[in-house]
Structures are given as C-alpha cells and as structure tokens.
C-alpha cells in the first residue's frame, strides 16, 4: 500500500515528463473494441465513464500507453488508481498527451457509487493544464465529468457519459480556447457468457459530426480475450488481445487508419484483494 502511494506520488510529481491527449477512450480493451467503452466496467471506466468503476472490488492500479501513428510527439500516457470502500469507489487519475513542446495534462479525482443493480453513478473532478513550449505559457482550467450506467436486463447495460457538461474553458489563453463538451452514450450486450458486443455514439463539440463505435470481445480460451472493433469519424479498424489473471491484466491493441497507418496501445492493470 505504501509502495502504491509512493508510486502515485511519483507519477503525479513527475508529470512534466509525461504527455497526454484530450478526452478519448482509455485502456487496451476499449482501444481494441473501436473505442467503445461507455457501458464497460473496470478500472479504466474511471476515464471512460466513471460510473463503471462503482462495482470495482479490488484495489487497482493501471498504466496505459498509446502512440498515435507511431509519432513520438503524439504519445499518450495515463495512470489510474482506484480504492473500493464501503461507501463507493474512490479514484485518482493522471493523463498526459503531447511532447515537451506542447502537452495537455489532466489530473482527476473520481468517485463512483452503485445504487442497486439498476443504477451506478460516477463523477470525476478535473484539473487541466495546457503547456505550450517556447515560453507561450501554461494555462489551466477546472471542470468535471459525469456518468451513469444501468444493467437494465441480465444482458443489456446502458451508459451515458458527459465531459465538461457546463462548458468551462481556458479563460487565459490568447484565443480563449474552449474546452469541448464530450457526450457519449451506448450499450453493452452480453450475447453469451463469453461473448460481448458494444456500441456507442459520441459527440465532441470541437469536432465535426459524431463518432460511432462498435466492438466485439470473445473469450477464446479461459482468461484470453480476442477483440475487434470499428470506429467512424475518424474511420478506424482495431484489433487486440487481452490476458488476465487474478492480480494482473494486460491488454494490447492496434488501430489501423487508412491514411495515417497504425497506432499501438498497451494497458496494464494490477490489483490487490480477493
């Protein structure tokens, strides 16, 4: 435990060497399933829809790395820690996108609670820091993310997530850059015990149009998952595998864009507890 806290402090204090992207699905599983994640559970739900970590039963630590189109300047790093308690799950997260010349950082404090099987609610308070090199300066903003999930039937789970619902922005920047609102909702359908389908729609107010995402996951062998997904706007096909044992999980994904090529994602989760 002490070690974990040390690690978290270390991650938080050395933020300047990390880099991160603005809101987009996190985790090797989500990446492999076309980005669909709003109705998923687990540690990475903290970033994708905090309601999904309400039922987490183990103390978990996750690390995630993504490299868009194999460009070092677009590296994307993320760390998260979750602590289940009697009164809900608490979480800490850190994301960074970019390089030393330009980077965006997000520090989050998350909380999620379930109210029976029908309703899980999650909230994350965010502190955002935008750094632009060559003395252009640092800019910050505060906002929050909200999510709900519901297991409406044995097979069907619905989720909704909103980042920055009241449209806060970076006031001090030259162009008064607005933070986007990101609104997504979707569903996960458990076709059989070992086969899951997910789909969702997302609107990011900074981008034209909406993004549709869908993904499939199949537990081919015990604890070994194979996944595939598709996403529109941008059009991406994705594939991945995941392997999980009691205290550790590793998920790897590759996303293919027709013009820009491949991106690689890797995520690891370590958990303590029963």
């Amino acid at each position, binding site marked *: 435990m002490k070690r974990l806290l040390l690690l978290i402090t270390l991650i938080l204090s050395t933020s300047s060497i990390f880099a991160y992207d603005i809101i987009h699905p996190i985790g090797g599983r989500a990446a492999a399933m076309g980005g669909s994640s709003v109705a998923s559970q687990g540690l990475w739900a903290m970033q994708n829809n905090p309601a999904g970590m309400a039922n987490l039963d183990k103390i978990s630590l996750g690390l995630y790395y993504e490299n868009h189109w194999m460009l070092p300047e677009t590296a994307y790093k993320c760390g998260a820690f979750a602590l289940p308690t009697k009164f809900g799950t608490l979480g800490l997260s850190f994301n960074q996108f970019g390089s030393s010349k330009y980077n965006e950082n997000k520090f989050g404090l998350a909380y999620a609670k379930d*109210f*029976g099987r*029908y*309703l899980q609610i999650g909230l994350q308070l965010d502190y955002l820091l935008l750094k632009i090199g060559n003395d252009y300066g640092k800019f910050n903003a505060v906002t929050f993310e909200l999510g*709900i999930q*519901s297991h*409406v*039937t044995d097979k*069907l789970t*619905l989720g*909704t997530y*909103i980042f920055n*619902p009241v*449209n806060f922005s970076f006031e001090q920047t030259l162009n008064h850059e*607005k933070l986007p*609102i990101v*609104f997504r*909702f979707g*569903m996960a359908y458990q076709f059989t015990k070992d086969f899951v389908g997910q789909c969702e*729609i997302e*609107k990011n*107010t900074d981008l*034209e*149009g*909406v993004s549709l995402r869908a993904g499939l996951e199949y537990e081919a062998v015990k604890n070994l998952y194979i996944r595939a997904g598709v996403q529109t706007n941008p059009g991406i096909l994705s594939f991945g595998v995941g392997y999980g044992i009691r205290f550790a999980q590793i998920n790897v994904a590759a996303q293919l864009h027709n013009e820009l090529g491949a991106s690689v994602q890797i995520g690891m989760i370590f958990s303590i507890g029963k």
Partner: protein
Amino acid sequence: MKRLVLIIVSLFIVSFAKAQIAIDTLSTEALNNLLIEQVERLAEDGDEDADYEDLLENYIFLSENPVNLNSEETMRLVELHLISVFQYEELQKYRRFYGDFMFLDELEMVEGLDEQTVAIIKPVVCIGKDESKDKITLNKMARYGKHQLVSRYEQVLEQQQGYAPIDDSALLAKPNSRYLGRPQKLQFKYTYNYRNKIRAGFTLEKDAGEMFFTDKVSDTIQKLLGNQYYRGFDFIGFHLYAKDLGIVKAAVLGDYQLAFGQGLTLWSGMSFGKAGAGSSVMKQGRGITPKGSASEYAFMRGAAVTLGAGAFSGTIFYSNRLVDANISVTDTLESEAEFVSSLQETGYHRTIGELQDRHAIRQQIVGGHLTFAIAHFEVGYTAHHTWLSVPLELKPSHYNQFYFQGNQLTNQGLDFKYVKGKYAVFGEVAMSMNYDSTALRPFDGLWAQGPAFAGLVGLTVKPAGYLNFTIMYRDYGKAYQNLYSNAFGEGSRNQGQRGIYLGMEVAPAPYWNLLAYVDQFQFTWLTSQVNAPSRGHDYYLRVSHSFNRRTQAYLQFRSKTKMKNSTDAFVFSHYPIFYTKNAVRFNINYQLGWDIHCANKAEYAHYRNDDGSNEHGYFLCQDIAYKPENKPYSLTFRYAIFDAKDYNARIYAYENDVLYSFSVPALYGKGMRVYLLGKVKLFNALTLYARIGRTIYSDHDEIGSGLTLIEGNHKTDLKVEAIWKL
C-alpha cells in the same frame, strides 16, 4: 365454464403481477411515447407552429376520463388511433363470447391485442357497467361532476427586440417595430365534466406581446387602432356539450370541432395526417367534439347537434365567428370595394399591423352530415356552405390561381367504410363549388370557379395477427377548395395532389416490431416556391424492440425528397429541382429501479443543397426523470447538445412540459439545451408544475431575428402552471 376458468386465470394473473401493477396499469408511459413520436413526425412534416394542444386535447381528456370497456365508448380508442378497427372488432367479439370485461388483465387475452397496444390502452380504459342509459339529474351532476381549473404563465426571460423600450414618435414612424403588450403569456381554462356525458368549460388566453388589462398604450396608438383597441384577454372561448341523451347523440353550444369520414370534406382542427402513419391511415371521424384549447384558428363557434335512430344518425351545425384577415380597399368608378388579401392563421395580435387584422371579417358555415351504418358497412354524406363577409382576393400569382377566392364556397362529400374479417376498405369523394361573383381577376376563366373534385380510397389487409398492409390512392383536383379539409396528404393542402401510399406493420418476432411506408406523390399544379408541377417521395422505416417491460428502443430512418425552386443566383428563371432530407434516429427508454426513468436519443439529419453541398445536423440527449411511486412530486431533467449549422438540417426534439402543454423546438446552430421540470401535488386538489429551459449557443451571439431578436447567446423559457381539481 369457460368464463369460470377465465376468471380464475385472471385472478391468478392479478395476484401474480401485483408488484408490476402499480407501474404498468397506472403508467401512461407507453401512450406518452406514442404521442411523442407522432408529434415529432408532425413537426418534421412542416407544421412547426401547429398548436399541439388542440390535437392532443382529446388524448388528455381520455387519459383523465378513461373509457368504459363494456360500452360503445371503446370506439373512441379507434378514433384516436390507439387501436385499429380490427382490434376493435376483436374486443367486441370477446365481449360477445365471454360477456363483459371484469378485469383489465383480461385485455391480454384478447386476440390481436399485442403487448404494446395493451400497455398503451390500459391506463385509458376502465371497467364498469354501461351507464349510457342512466338518467341525469341536477343533483347527480352537482355531486359527481368534476371541476378543473388550469392556470398557466409563460415567458422568455431575455428581452426580445419587440419589447425593447421605444418612444411614441419612433413607434409611429415604424408602427410594426414593437409589440404593444408585455412578454408574458397567460392562460386560464375551466372545465366541468359529468361522467363524460355533460361537459362545459371556458378558456381565456393572452399570448406573449398581446395587450392586457394593465398595459399602457398611448392615446395616439389607441387612435390609430380605432375600434381594434381592446383591454383584457385576446382569446375567450366557451363550450357546453352533452351526449347520449335519448336520440340526441351529441349536442354542443360554443366552440367545437367536427370530424367526418376520411377528413376530405370536413375535418376542422388538426389531425395527425401522415404523421400518424401505419394503422392510422384510415381515419375514423369522431363527429362533434367540444373544443377547450386556446388555438385561435380552424374551429367552429356556434351550435351543432347529432341525432341518431337505428342505423341512421345525422348532424347539423352552424358556425359564426370573426376571423383575422388583411382588408384592403379598391377604388372602382362606381364605388369603393373591400376585399381581403389573405386570412391570417397565427392567432397572434401583438403589433399594430396584427391588431388591425384582428377579427376583421365574419365567417359563417352551415352544414350537416348523415350516416347510415349496418353491420360492417358505413356510408356518410357531408355538405357545408361557407360565407365570408368580405370576399377573399389573393395577390395574383401563378401558384395560387386555383386557391379559394371570393366569398362563398360549397363542399359536399360521400364517405364509406367496410370492415370485416381481414379487410378494411375506406374512401371518400368530395366536391367543391365556388360561387365567386366578385370583380374581375387576372386568371378568371381558368377553372378557378365552378365544380372541382377530390377523392381517396384505401384498403387495409390483415393476413395474420402480426401483419398488416395498407394501400391507398388519393387524387385531389387542382381546383378542389375547402377551408376545413384535413385528409391524408403531403403538405397541409388537400389540393392539386395525387399520390400512392403503401404501408406495412409487422411483428417479425416476439418483442420486435417493424413499421414501414412509402408515399409517392405528385403536385399537379405549381405550389409556393415551386414554379412547375412537381413530384417527390417519402420513405419511412422504424424498427422497435422491447428488451423487457421497462426497456424499449427504436431505430428510425426517414428520407423525403421534394422539389423546390433552384436558388442558383445565375439562373434567370427559377425552375424546381429535387431536394432530399434524410434523418436517422435512435431512441431508448429505460428505467433505473422503480423511480428513475431515463431516455437517450441520438438523431442525425442530412440535407443536400442544389449545389451538391451537404448540410448535417446532430443531436444527442440524456433524459432523467425522478418519479417516486406514491410521492406527490417528480422531477424531469434533460441535457442535450446539438450541432446543425444550417436550418435545413434542423432537428426537432420533443420536450416534456407542464401538463396540457407541448413543445417540440426546432434546434439548429451549435450549442446545448437543458431543462428542468418539476411537479408537486400540494394537496389533493392542487398540483403545481414549473419548467425552466435554456438553450445556449456557442456559435453565435444573437438569437432570432426581427422582433424576436435576443442579443446574447442564450434563451431561457419559464412556465408555471397550477391545476386545481375538484
């Protein structure tokens, strides 16, 4: 014996389903969802300013005054398109077989009533003895009558240009640059109902911007308005209605609506038209209905009575009311002649110009309807004659030369219906006769006068319980004129139009439902902004699925192609070209536990311009309603974002509103929309509603134009309503 088994089975179901009853039998959720979809389709069809209250009045009345399953009243469910004629027949058959209904859950055993239909009608039916023959006494009326008073206030909180301060001389220079009244809208509605048999009520209304008791209007403006100046409510209406009194089937004094046959000859007020699609293509005239809504256009004011004996029933009516019109005067050598250049339909009297048109001419209508019905067959004849106190002379244009002009119009029509077994055949033929005898008009002699015809015929086949097809053909002559026609069609005019409609409803698997239709139409003459006869089509597909009793989703596609003049600036003569609008919508309703109701909606609209460029519109929303059982309060919240750069790709999204009020705003631009609606029942007789909504735009700093212009990027609307029931 059969009866006994049935009762035992029902008892079993009742006790078994007790936990669900509180939700399922009392919740009008299914009915609401049905109406929401239909109202949204209506808005998409272009009737943006439509007064939904007028249309939905009957549904609201029904939800508060359920029909008795063991009486003839069940027909009202067909009239309101909640069940099909086939399902009505099945209900009657069930009653003939097993006797009167004893439990609502028996509905689930009626053949042909699917789960969805049962969910829709359950809250609006009840079980009782047939009381239609009971005597009515004053004593009973006083004791069992229900009184209700609805007061509503609404306002846009930001200042709109029309309410900005202005001095008199500036206003006189530009008299229509301001509204004379204040921005509050007020409405009071009182109704009395005795067992659906005796109904009475009055309605008072003042729209935003209309003058009221307290407004200070300067002397010069009063003088300018002359006798058009008034103080108090702009709209005052009342009705007194009775039904089933011996041979008097229905009688009304005051404001009312009439609906007969397929609506081609006489259907005042609104109807769902194409919006209702599916099983509602065949209309069921509901005869006389009292009108309590505050809509100020398209209704009758006077008296009407329906008498019935045996297979015959007959209605006669007379209406006499003042309507809004723009009066002009022409000087001829002999004298000055008055004429009106248009009839105003909005019901707004806010500016000097609008006030000058207020109640400018008198419209009188007299007519009747005769029905003969035996077993499965029904035939009706309708005739009515309209007088205007001042003749209508439209500003001459090519497209309107067959429109009604003059001051007298006669309409006649013959409708029929045959429903038996798997078939329903229906139709109507109508004729209009224009007695225009006024001054010369540029297009005289081109058949604008004299007789013209219109007709429609349709067939619905139901080969199996889960499947039905409808085919319908319509041909409305280009000179067919009728001020009170509301039959199935494209656009709001039943004139100069031909079309074929093909529809299908099928339940391919349990909990799955599919509705599809194609409507192909031609306009046989020019229409507004279309410089040639034109054509188009309308495709619709909707797939719905129930995951369980409390989780329903649907996916809907709609594609509509119509012709409109090209807007190409380099073309000298504007010729019509095709425009297509496509829309896809996904909607899911679900419940979190018993108390929280949620819905998500995503919609995409696409519009192709004539230069090949495309417009896109997007809309996403989350609805959360907290409605605790057995608690006197509820809260509803919506969070939505939209992104539709162009008006053509606008999105219509129904919003929950205070009771008896409906809103379907058209959203375009880029921004977000939130609203919060609260309801609290203070004590048994008094319920309060309040709603505040705000639209915030991120792409512009001004909202609206002209008199409704708001300087700022947000628009906030507030509504407060009190309902007092006794």
